[in-house]
């Protein structure tokens, strides 16, 4: 027992510092770049791409429907990505990297929370569906007023999807490629439906990658290691709680936010 748990928190695992820092810097640059594009200098090219994607809207009701359910049904989106995390958790060859898996997954989800905060703190940015200048045709079944009171930048869904896919890719190339392709599909649906601009998604994804890189730093890995140890010492606490947490991650804590929001209405 003890030898296994000390394997988890044996100081900081050695990550190639230069490579990881470069990734973090590129991610940071992308976040800054997309922020500038969104608020200061919108790209005409982006609008053109959005509109050309929008040409497909309403052509096929089936396609619109599939895009719609991929974007909001958690079972076939968030749940699948989180299942990928569990696959990695139980792979015998990756036992030694469980701390990294846990810490980075929490970071990926944390970036969604971060992007929510950014949405509140940055000036209102209407979503493509509501952007008068763009004049998109909503695909079948999409209400043009959806999500109108949330700023569009950055995309928290994009952050979670890309973040989780990145974590999977870090630990397992092949599965990671599938995850990345899947995350890209999910992000496309949100662009197609007019919920987000492309730069919103890129910004959210870059934010997630940046957060994951920061989570590779020793202090975070140590906390992660401490938590991972419980999977050996107290599995009957660790796994139920992790299950609840994973449900939250897969649903982007939508239900929790709804409940807390509802309760706050009574207190305030």
């Amino acid at each position: 027992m003890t030898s296994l748990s000390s394997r988890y928190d044996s100081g900081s695992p050695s990550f190639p510092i230069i490579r990881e820092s470069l990734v973090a810097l590129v991610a940071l640059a992308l976040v800054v770049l997309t922020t500038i594009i969104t608020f200061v200098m919108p790209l005409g090219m982006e609008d053109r791409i959005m509109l050309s994607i929008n040409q497909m809207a309403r052509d096929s009701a089936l396609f619109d429907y599939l895009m719609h359910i991929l974007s909001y049904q958690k079972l076939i989106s968030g749940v699948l990505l989180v299942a990928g995390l569990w696959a990695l958790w139980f792979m015998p060859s990756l036992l030694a990297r469980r701390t990294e898996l846990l810490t980075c997954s929490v970071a990926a989800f944390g970036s969604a929370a971060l992007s929510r905060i950014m949405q509140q703190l940055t000036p209102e940015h209407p979503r493509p569906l509501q952007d008068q200048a763009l004049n998109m045709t909503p695909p079948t079944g999409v209400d043009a007023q959806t999500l109108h009171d949330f700023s569009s930048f950055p995309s928290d869904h994009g952050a979670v999807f890309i973040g989780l896919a990145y974590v999977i890719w870090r630990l397992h190339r092949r599965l990671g490629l599938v995850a990345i392709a899947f995350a890209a599909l999910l992000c496309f649906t949100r662009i197609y439906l007019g919920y987000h601009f492309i730069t919103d998604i890129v910004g959210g994804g870059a934010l997630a990658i940046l957060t994951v890189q920061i989570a590779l730093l020793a202090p975070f890995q140590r906390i992660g290691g401490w938590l991972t140890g419980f999977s050996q010492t107290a599995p009957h606490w660790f796994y139920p709680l992790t299950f609840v947490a994973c449900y939250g991650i897969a649903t982007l804590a939508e239900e929790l936010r709804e409940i807390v929001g509802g309760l706050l209405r009574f207190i305030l």
Partner: protein
Amino acid sequence: MAIALVAFAILAPLALSGTTAEYAFMSFINQSAQHNELLDYLMNAFSYQKLITGVPLLAGICAIWCMPSLIARRGDILICTLAAFLTSLVSRVMQIFIPDNPRPLQDEALGMTPPFDISPEFHDLTSFPSDHAAVFIGLGYVIWRFCRPLGVIALMFAVLVSFSRAYMGFHFATDIIAGGLLSVIVIELALLTPF
């Protein structure tokens, strides 16, 4: 097990006939409706939010799955959990064959006041038995069977959650009790079979 069967056999015709005792109980609960917004809100949340209903119960199943002392009984745990979910299927099938039994919200004779922001609209499934209660109480029962202390909490929670559906007017109290008994029967049956 035998107790459950007998109790169910007695309960079923009673629930279907819509006794006055049932109505009295539902009216009694309904008195609180629309009085306390917080209560109404919490009951509503319990009735449809998965995070605070199914998820904690499944987390309880995870807990007993991972308990070192119960590793040898994992086969049984798996069978029982599957049986609990199967019960909802069973109760759905029952709902098709049983004559239409309107839910409390739709029942004119009862004259319920819906708790806030609930419209008496509903799909046309009969009210008896309650498949939600079957799964919730079923999972609670599975946990209790393998770990008493945790199971007591789980069962109490399952009953609370099921009660919220009665409060919201989706089910009569007897529908819920019947659903729970049904799942106990299915779970015990599953353990008897040589899987």
